[in-house]
C-alpha cells in the first residue's frame, strides 16, 4: 500500500506526495517536505496519531502538511 502526504488547500484535501514506503528514499521524501515547509510554513503531522512529526519515516502511511495559523 502506498503512503501519501496530503494537505488542506483551497481545493480541499490535496495529495502532494505518494510513494511506496518500503522502497522510497526517505531522505528524499523529507527533503521535499522540508522544501514545502520552507515555502508554505506547513509542517507534517501523522494522520494515525495526530502528532506533529519532526521527520516522516516508513512507519507513517498518511501524513498531513498543516499550514500556519495567524490570530486576528
Amino acid at each position, binding site marked *: 500500500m502506498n503512503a*501519501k502526504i496530503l*494537505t*488542506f*488547500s*483551497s*481545493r*480541499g*484535501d*490535496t*495529495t*502532494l*506526495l*505518494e*510513494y511506496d514506503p518500503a522502497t*522510497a*528514499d526517505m531522505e*528524499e*521524501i523529507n527533503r*521535499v517536505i522540508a*522544501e*514545502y*515547509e520552507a*515555502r*508554505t*510554513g*506547513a*509542517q507534517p*503531522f501523522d*494522520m494515525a*496519531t*495526530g*502528532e*506533529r512529526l519532526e521527520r516522516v519515516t516508513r512507519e507513517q502511511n498518511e501524513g*498531513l502538511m*498543516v*499550514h*500556519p*495559523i*495567524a*490570530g*486576528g
Partner: protein
Amino acid sequence: MAPAIVSVIAFLVLIVWRFVFAGSRSGPLARAIARQQQRHSNPLAEGLHISDLGTVAVIAENQFENNSGGLRSLDRKDRAKAYLRRIAALTGATQTGSAYVLDVGKMRFRVRDRHVSRLRDITDPGCALEETCFYPVHRGMPKAEEIATALLQLMNNPALFDRWAAQSGAYKADGQAFSPGQ
C-alpha cells in the same frame, strides 16, 4: 499526357486530404493530453518542486478535479467534514453544536469557525474565559479543514493560543513565526 497530369493532381489531393483529415482527428487528443499535463502541473503552483524526484515519489493530482464545478464543490465540503470528524477523533475533541471542545491537560479549548476560546483550568470554577480569532495563512480552504487545522495545532502546542491572541502574525505548528513571503 493530360490523363497522367490529372492522375498526379488527384493523387496529391488525396495526400493533402489525408493529412487534413488525420489532423482534425488528432486535435482533440492532443488537447486532452495538454489538459492532462496541465492538471499534473497544478500542485506545483502550491510551491512544491519535484523535478528531480525521479521514481522516488510522485505528486498525485486531486482525483476529483475532473468533476464539474458544483459536484466538486459539494464533494470538497463533504470530504472536509469527513477529515474534521477524523481529526476530532484523533485529538479527542467532541462536537457541541458548531463548535469542537478540546481538552489539553487542564485547559479546555472551544473551536468554531475562526474563533477559539480557552479556559486555562477547567478544575477552577472561577477561571476566566479567553477568546480570540484565528485564520489559516493558506486562504480558501473549507471551514471544516480550518477547524481541523486548529484542533491539531492546539493539541500539539496549546501555547499557540497565546500567540494567536497576541495578533502578532502567523505561526507554524511548532510555534515558530512565519511570514508568507519568507
